[in-house]
C-alpha cells in the first residue's frame, strides 16, 4: 500500500487517462441542448438528458472548437434551419475529455441533423395534430384580409431592427399608401417569448375594431432561436385569433408551428411590409385600370354615337326625299284603291239612287199629267155646264128684279124684263102675259 501523496496534476492526469480511452472517443450520443453560447469562435453548451417528468438525470459540458464550429454549424443549419439552441435534441459525435484545469467536457466533432429534424418534426406533428383535433388549426387561415389592409397591429420587440425595417418599408412606400400602425411590444426571443406574444395578442384583441390584421415580426439573424415558436399555446392563440395574422419572424424555412396556423407567412418583417404595400398597389392599379376602361368605353361609345349621328345626317336629305316620295306613292295607291273600292261599292248605290230619282220624277209627272187631264175634263164639263154655252145655243136668261124667271106667273104686265143673251142684254117691258094654262 502506497502512502505517497499525489499532486493534483498527477491525479487529474490519471483521471484523464481513465476518461480518454478508445471507447469514449468518437462515440455518437443523443442529448438535449441548453445554455448555448459562442465565445471566441468556440461554441459552448450544456448537454442534458431528462427523464419522463423532465428531471435532469445526466448533464455534461459540451464544446465545439472554433476549428470545426463553422462547418458543423453550417451543416446543421442547412439541414434543419436551426442554430444550436436551447431545447433542441441533437445527435453528436463526441470524445470525452478531462482537462486538468477545465475538467470534464465532451468535444463535439460532428452532428447528425436528421435526428434533430426528426425530433422537431415529431414535436411539430404532435402540436399540429392536437390543434387539428381541437378543430382550430385552420381557423386563422380561413379569415379574409380586407382587399387593402391599412390598419395594422404590430407585435414586435420595440427598438428591434426587424420592427424598424418593417415601419420604414411600410411608410416610405412609393405610392404614398396610407397605413396606420401601433406597436404592441413583446419579447420575441427565448423561453418567455410565447407568453409575451400571447399577452400582446390579447391587448390587440381588446381594441380589435381598430385593426384590419396583426403582424408578428422580429428581425432575422444568425442567432435565430425559433424553438420558442414551436409552442402549442402560442400556436393555439394565433390559430383562434379573430383577426388575420401575418408572420415575419425572420427565417428561411417553413419551420415553426406558427407558420402552419398563421393566415399569412412571410420570411422577414420587410417582406411583410412589401406584401402589404403590394396589396395597396394592386388596388391602386385596379382603380387606374377601371378608370382607363371607363374612359375608353365612354370615348368609344361617344365616337360610335357621333358616327351614327353623322351617318344619319348624311342620310337625312335623301331619307326625307325618299319619305316624301314614299308618302306620295302611298297616297296615290290609296286613292286608286279607294276609287276602286268606291266604284265597286257606290255604283249599285248610285244606280239605285238614279232609279229612285227617275221613279220619283216619273211618279211626279204622272201625277201632274193625271191632274192636268182631270183638270182638263173638269174644265170641259164646266164649260159644258156654263150658261154661256147654253146662251150660245140660242137660250137666254130672263130676270125680273134681278131674279131669274122660270115661270110666266112671276111676270106681270108692265114688268121690266132683263134678257141676257150670249153676247149682251136686252131690257124690255112686258105688254101681255100668257101662260100655258090660259090668260090671266
Amino acid at each position, binding site marked *: 500500500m502506497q502512502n505517497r501523496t499525489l499532486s493534483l496534476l498527477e491525479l487529474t492526469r490519471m483521471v484523464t487517462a481513465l476518461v480518454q480511452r478508445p471507447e469514449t472517443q468518437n462515440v455518437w450520443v443523443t442529448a438535449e441542448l441548453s445554455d448555448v453560447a459562442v465565445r471566441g469562435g468556440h461554441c459552448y453548451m450544456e448537454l442534458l438528458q431528462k427523464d419522463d417528468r423532465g428531471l435532469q438525470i445526466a448533464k455534461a459540458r459540451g464544446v465545439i472548437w472554433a476549428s470545426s464550429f463553422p462547418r458543423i454549424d453550417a451543416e446543421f443549419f442547412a439541414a434543419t434551419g436551426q442554430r444550436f439552441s436551447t431545447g433542441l435534441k441533437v445527435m453528436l459525435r463526441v470524445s470525452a475529455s478531462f482537462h486538468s484545469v477545465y475538467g470534464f467536457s465532451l468535444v463535439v466533432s460532428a452532428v447528425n441533423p436528421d435526428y434533430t429534424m426528426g425530433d422537431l418534426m415529431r414535436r411539430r406533428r404532435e402540436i399540429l395534430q392536437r390543434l387539428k383535433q381541437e378543430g382550430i388549426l385552420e381557423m386563422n387561415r380561413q379569415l379574409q384580409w380586407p382587399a387593402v389592409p391599412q390598419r395594422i397591429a404590430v407585435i414586435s420587440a420595440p427598438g428591434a431592427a426587424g420592427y424598424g425595417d418593417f415601419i420604414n418599408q411600410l*411608410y416610405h412606400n412609393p405610392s*404614398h399608401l*396610407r397605413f*396606420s400602425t401601433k406597436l404592441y411590444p413583446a419579447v420575441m426571443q427565448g423561453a418567455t417569448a410565447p407568453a409575451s406574444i400571447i399577452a400582446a395578442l390579447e391587448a390587440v384583441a381588446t381594441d380589435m375594431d381598430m385593426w384590419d390584421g396583426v403582424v408578428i415580426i422580429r428581425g432575422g439573424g444568425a442567432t435565430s432561436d425559433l424553438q420558442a415558436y414551436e409552442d402549442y399555446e402560442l400556436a393555439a392563440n394565433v390559430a383562434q385569433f379573430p383577426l388575420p395574422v401575418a408572420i415575419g419572424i425572420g427565417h428561411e424555412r417553413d419551420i415553426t408551428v406558427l407558420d402552419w396556423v398563421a393566415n399569412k407567412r412571410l420570411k422577414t418583417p420587410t417582406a411583410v411590409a412589401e406584401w402589404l404595400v403590394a396589396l395597396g398597389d394592386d388596388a391602386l392599379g385596379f*382603380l387606374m385600370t377601371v378608370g382607363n376602361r371607363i374612359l375608353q*368605353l365612354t370615348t368609344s361609345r361617344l365616337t360610335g354615337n357621333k358616327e351614327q349621328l353623322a351617318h344619319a345626317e348624311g342620310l337625312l336629305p335623301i331619307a326625307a326625299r325618299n319619305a316624301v316620295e314614299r308618302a306620295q306613292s302611298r297616297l296615290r295607291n290609296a286613292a286608286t284603291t279607294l276609287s276602286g273600292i268606291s266604284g265597286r261599292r257606290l255604283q249599285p248605290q248610285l244606280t239605285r239612287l238614279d232609279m229612285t230619282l227617275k221613279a220619283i220624277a216619273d211618279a211626279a209627272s204622272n201625277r201632274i199629267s193625271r191632274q192636268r187631264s182631270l183638270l182638263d175634263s173638269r174644265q170641259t164639263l164646266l164649260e159644258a155646264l156654263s150658261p154661256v154655252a147654253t146662251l150660245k145655243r140660242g137660250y137666254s136668261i130672263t130676270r125680273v128684279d134681278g131674279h131669274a124667271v122660270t115661270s110666266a106667273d112671276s111676270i106681270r104686265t108692265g114688268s121690266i124684263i132683263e134678257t141676257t143673251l150670249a153676247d149682251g142684254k136686252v131690257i124690255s117691258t112686258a105688254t101681255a102675259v100668257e101662260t100655258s094654262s090660259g090668260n090671266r
Partner: protein
Amino acid sequence: MTPVKELTYNQAISELESILRTMQSDDCDIDRLATLTRRATELIAECRSRLVATDEELRTILATLEK
C-alpha cells in the same frame, strides 16, 4: 344613390365593377353614360383618397413614429 363617402371600400369597388359591366353591355344608352361616368369617377377618387395619404398626413405619421 348613396354618397361615395358613406360607402365602404368594398361597396365602392363592387359598384365600380357593376358600372363597368353596365357600360360594357350593349344596352347602356348614351343618356346614362354621362351619369355612370361621373359616378365612376367619384368612386375612383374616393377609393384612391382612402388608399393614399396626402404628403401632410404622411409627415405627421412619420413624425409620430420617430418620437
